């Protein structure tokens, strides 16, 4: 077994667009859940909408920045549609509505009727909409090796995408950091703890919850753009499992922390590649074929996470003291 190349794979995945996209989505979910206590079970829907919004407007000929803003606008509208009717009701309604709405987006996206716009279940190929992003790169094309990782500078899963992606993650973390220590963040935390108490103090809870849902959804949409720029827009690859993985990442890293979602995403994808690689290397193919190893990887990562949550329920960066207090 070639450990050096396995470790290279791990490193490549842990720093790649998937980890970036999930980190962004988990940062958004952290605003929903970690800060405000909102249960959003449809973060994948925000990602998919962001991806569609960006890809479709680029294909329509709009410039990069406009396409980016349209993707964000889609997430804002989606959040308002979901939030306006549900955020006045008990918390569970948002969970139910978001999971359903994310599925509806996916089904609409893959429907035959919209083939011309969304590419149906085939989705939109990367080549149709990547050019504006790749064209914006200041770097020369070509294969570039940094350390053990060698990637295209600008095409698809590229250094350029990683630079921009991690830049976006850093920006998102900065925003969360600034918000966490602000009076606005304080109101959100108050809502998480007991929204009636916050109402009694004269705050319009509904407005704050809407703002939280919109902001977190926007980060999800940005994650969706990153993941689509690495490959393509594929409705079925942004379904429910993506939402569940995002939740796992958030809880793994630690909710209500600034860097928890980022660390969670890096570790999650590193662990997955490592576990799969080890199984492939150590288990003979006649015992377990590589197609069987794929899902088994998720199973093992899942078990590890269960153990982690049992022994460190606050997540890696979470504050044990804070979690020990029962609301």
């Amino acid at each position, binding site marked *: 077994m070639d450990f050096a190349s396995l470790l290279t794979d791990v490193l490549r995945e842990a720093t790649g667009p998937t980890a970036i996209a999930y980190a962004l989505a988990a940062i958004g979910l952290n605003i929903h859940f970690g800060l405000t206590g909102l249960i959003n079970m449809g973060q994948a829907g925000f990602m998919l909408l962001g991806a569609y919004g960006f890809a479709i407007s680029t294909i329509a000929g709009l410039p990069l920045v406009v396409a980016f803003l349209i993707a964000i606008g889609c997430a804002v509208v989606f959040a308002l549609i979901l939030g306006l009717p549900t955020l006045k009701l008990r918390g569970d309604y948002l969970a139910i509505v978001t999971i359903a709405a994310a599925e509806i987006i996916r089904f609409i996206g893959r429907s035959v009727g919209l083939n011309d716009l969304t590419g149906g279940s085939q989705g939109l190929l990367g080549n149709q909409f990547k050019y504006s992003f790749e064209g914006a790169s200041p770097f020369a094309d070509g294969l570039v090796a940094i350390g053990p990782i060698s990637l295209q500078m600008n095409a698809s899963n590229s250094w350029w995408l990683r630079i921009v992606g991690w830049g976006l993650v850093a920006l998102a973390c900065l925003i969360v950091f600034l918000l966490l220590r602000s009076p606005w963040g304080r109101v959100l935390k108050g809502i*998480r703890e007991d929204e009636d108490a916050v109402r*009694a103090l004269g705050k319009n809870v509904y407005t704050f919850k809407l703002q939280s849902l919109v902001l977190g959804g926007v980060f999800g949409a940005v994650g969706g753009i990153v993941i689509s720029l690495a490959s393509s827009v594929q409705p079925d690859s942004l379904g429910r499992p993506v939402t569940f993985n995002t939740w796992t990442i958030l809880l793994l890293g630690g909710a209500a922390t600034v860097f928890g979602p980022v660390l969670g995403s890096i570790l999650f994808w590193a662990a997955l590649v490592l576990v799969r690689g080890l199984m492939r290397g150590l288990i003979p193919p006649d015992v377990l074929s590589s197609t069987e190893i794929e899902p088994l990887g998720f199973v093992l990562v899942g078990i590890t996470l269960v153990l982690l949550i049992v022994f460190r329920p606050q997540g890696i960066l979470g504050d044990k003291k804070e979690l020990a207090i029962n609301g």
Partner: protein
Amino acid sequence: MAEPIVTDAVNPDVVAARDALRGVAHTPGVAKPTPLLVADGVRRTFGGVNAVDVEHLEVQSNVITALIGPNGAGKTTFFNLMTGFDRPDAGSWTFDGKSLAGVPASRVSKSGMVRTFQLTKALSRMTVLENMRLGARDQVGEGMGAALLRPLWRKQEKEVTEKARDLLARFKLDTKESDFAGSLSGGQRKLLEMARALMSDPTLVMLDEPMAGVNPALTQSLLGHITALRDSGTSVLFVEHDMHMVRHISDWVVVMAEGKVVAEGPPKEVMDDQAVIDAYLGSHHDTDLGDDSLLEEESVISAEAMAELEAEEEAK
């Protein structure tokens, strides 16, 4: 600084309000000289039972009004209705001359009527100081955009923090400011909730059983806080089962039973009223309607209890 203030009021508004109350008849629903809260025909039913059915009630400004009555009389429900946490089946009410029917809870609070809850709502996974800061009004940094730009709200945050520390000191919670609110004792949480409500300088503060669960050692100083509050111009309406407290600090007492206002008047008379005693005895026989001689005894005990409490705290 945290000296319990003796009830002899110095605030001229309070003196005037009390004088005016002397001329008010002791009949349920009677009009007050300068009412702050006026409720009319407020009814709330739960499954056919009238939890609240108040024909008319006026709460006088600048005094302490106690709302008493047996368990299930509808006191908490009445609070919920007045403050927008519940909707009545019928009725209207005004606060400070403005109608509040149908107004959401946050706007009621903004208009100056701030309540606490019978089941304390401390925001557990926030520090005591953060709990307090949340109570302050009109914070620039509570806007999502402004939140990102600290210079816009740094100065206000400092003022809010100073005010919070002041109040915490008054309520003897200053040493706890960086503890999570969830780690406080039940009584301390009650104090915190009350202090937090005061961050907004309310016109009327409505306290739902502020003494329940509070260590007896702290009740004396809590009484002092409430009277001090009145003397500084805040009107108080509180629900309480502790009749010593009701006798000791209230200027006016309203009695509810089965949703209705059945009696009102000055504390001494109301508590000697046969109808009131019956209302209580009807539900639980062991209620002690309060005797001032016991209160004196209690204050001796409380000094000892305080010492004990402090020893306990240190042992932690």
